[in-house]
């Protein structure tokens, strides 16, 4: 063995091929089957995609690095299920490009945050976290309320999402900007389009309390309020959730 190596280490190309070969095996064995084994991701026929406003909110969540302190993955441990709710299923992040499972809980898990608090609470919390949770160490995000949401490129966002596998329809892509506006302006004509395209259960509200203008606060709160609510697969008995078609 060492004699073989004694000869191998005299050949650059031998070393290079050896390293590539040896280093490829682990990743290949662990990752490739995740795309082919059916049971890896459960079936959830009721799963819907993010609305353009929620997707914009998700991008703000990513932009501000929220994932560095908040996980979105409830583990299969008793205390986690009791603290945060039913453990997370793979299907729940099926449309998450990329996933935001996180690796650190400086703040609590957010996988089931949706509709746990009111919109007003979220807005107050974002403007000054210590106004509602005195012990909080979260940064304040007051600027979100002052910043108008960029909607002109939302169609491109949905289009790129479709390119990576999220089933957005042509209709959804064409109306992305209008739907973003409509979801935060319940009394406007655009609001109907949102429920038509994304389902009656879609939350249409003035998330930041001001229906007249569309801010980044609207988008972020809309996203926080949908967390854990794209499908209710996790609330069903396990056997149902894992059944094959």
């Amino acid at each position, binding site marked *: 063995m060492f004699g073989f190596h004694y000869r191998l280490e005299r050949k650059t190309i031998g070393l290079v091929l050896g390293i590539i070969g040896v280093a490829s095996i682990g990743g290949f064995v662990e990752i490739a089957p995740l795309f082919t084994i059916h049971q890896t991701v459960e079936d959830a026929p009721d799963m819907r995609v993010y609305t353009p406003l929620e997707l914009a909110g998700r991008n703000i969540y990513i932009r501000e690095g929220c994932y560095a302190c908040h996980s979105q993955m409830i583990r299969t441990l008793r205390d986690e299920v009791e603290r945060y709710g039913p453990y997370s299923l793979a299907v729940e992040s099926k449309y998450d490009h990329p996933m935001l499972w996180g690796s650190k809980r400086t703040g609590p898990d957010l996988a089931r945050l949706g509709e746990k608090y009111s919109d007003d609470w979220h807005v107050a919390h974002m403007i000054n976290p210590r106004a509602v949770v005195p012990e909080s160490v979260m940064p304040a995000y007051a600027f979100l309320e002052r910043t108008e949401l960029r909607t002109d490129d939302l169609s491109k966002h949905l289009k790129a*999402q479709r390119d990576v596998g999220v089933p957005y329809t042509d209709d959804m892509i064409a109306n992305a900007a209008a739907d973003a506006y409509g979801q935060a302006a319940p009394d406007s004509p655009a609001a109907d389009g949102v429920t038509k395209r994304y389902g009656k259960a879609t939350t249409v509200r003035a998330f930041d309390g001001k229906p007249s203008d569309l801010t980044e606060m609207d988008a972020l709160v809309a996203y926080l309020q949908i967390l854990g609510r794209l499908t209710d697969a996790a609330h069903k008995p396990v056997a149902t959730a894992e059944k094959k078609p």
Partner: protein
Amino acid sequence: MVAELTKNERQGALVILLALAVTGLAMAAGGRGDPFGVHGALVLVVSIAGIFAVIGGYYAPEPSPDRLDSYYDTPTKFGIIAAMVWAVVGMAVGDWVAWLLAYPEWTFDAAWASFGRLRPVHTSGVIFGFGGNALIATSFYVMQRTSRARLPDQLTPWFVLFGYNLFCVIAATGYLMGVTQSKEYAEPEWYADIWLVIVWVVYFVLYLRTLNRRKEPHIYVSNWYYLAFILVVAMLHIVNNLAVPISWGSAKSYSLFSGVQDAMTEWWYGHNAVAFFLTSGFLGMMYYYMPKRAGRPIYSYRMSIISFWGITFFYMWAGSHHLHYTALPQWVQSLGMTFSVMLLVPSWVSAGNALMTLNGAWHKVRDDAVLRFMMVAAVFYGLSTFEGSFMAIRPVNALSHYTDWTVGHVHAGALGWVAMITFGAIYASVPWLWKRNGMYSAKLVEAHFWLALAGTIIYVFAMWNSGIIQGLMWRTYNESGTLAYSFVDSLVAMHPYYIARAVGGVFFLLGAIIGFYNIWMTIRTASQDETAHNTADHPVTEPAVGVPALQPGE
């Protein structure tokens, strides 16, 4: 620097810089109103500055042919200074965000100053800025000496170094503007990733070209590690960063993978960034500088072989231990745990090999802070690889995951191992490179050593305490069978440890600043003995001395 390039190389540099300027202009024009355009403007300005610099030196006389008789070390000098600049910047930002966790009001109501945007500036700054520059710089130094061959040309190493630092600057400024993929330790967006691939391929080819010019029949063990670092980081980087940009004029892209597959790909990348960036590369560094400084050959050639291939094979399986008890299928979690535990064997073989190399030189460890940096690095390498295998065991991970324990573990490795071996290697090479008798002040090296060690210990102990308290509080039930503590209770309990951690960080940062000053003064202070030079500086004219002879088994 331009004077060291031949006429052809100066023309080549101009062509590359012009192409870069055109790319920057196109980015700036296509990305108006988007951070993408700001980065385009940055690329444009940098390339124009480069063009002026090359034109300014264009008519300087060509370098003398004598240069081919010695190694080409100017890029290494630049890389070492760049590494120290990034060290100070990255560690300062790291300590600042550590204080933010204790005093969250210090964000000035500004988006760029919030924890979430500054944290990746810290992580990328220290890992890629400090660590990456140190690796590239030392690899240039080591591959020339262990191959007894000069770099094949003068332009390519500069392309690698400048290109790599441009990547780092684009990454760091991008985070401040909110440009991030959110993939941990792979935050830079698609265009920065593509640029890094180009730089990395050139780096790899440069390495092969130098190895092919070698006058030593055997490739020294340091080079195996540097090669593994370059190759596997390329594999990881390309696969994990596959993404579709929303347009050619926008910084934003969407990852090709989603959900559970994305999680596995990300932690396959994330853990092996630790393995091949922060372990393999720095083991390459250790295998050269530690025997050189100690004046002892590597203890065991066979242990080097076993640990090298063991690390290269086992590490690639270990990433899934970041996803215990999650929605990742259990068979992958079990594989990850198993291989993580087995990984302890090659890791400790490496650490043992390093420490046994010091046999017969322990009096030097006592007297020489530079060698002591390297010794402590090997000890922390052994400690943190043990801790890593331990934390990968599923029930242990149930407690440690999501807590500060992970942060403490990472810093035991990053401060104790990576930074210590780097400081040791830099202190060893600065006098060699600038032809000085020694560092400007041995006392300051000593001060840096104790500050770094104290800072690391304070940091790691603070995080052990906070992490374990956190984990236990989250799972404590009271007598009536309900959870005893709210999340906020655990947060309040963290406060003193967050302050202790930030104080530990101040110690470490102070050490790095002192180190920077000491290096700067060493360079500025002319040597009393101008003729002093390292005997290993001439690849052709002098017989084989130093490292090649250190290989047992020959």
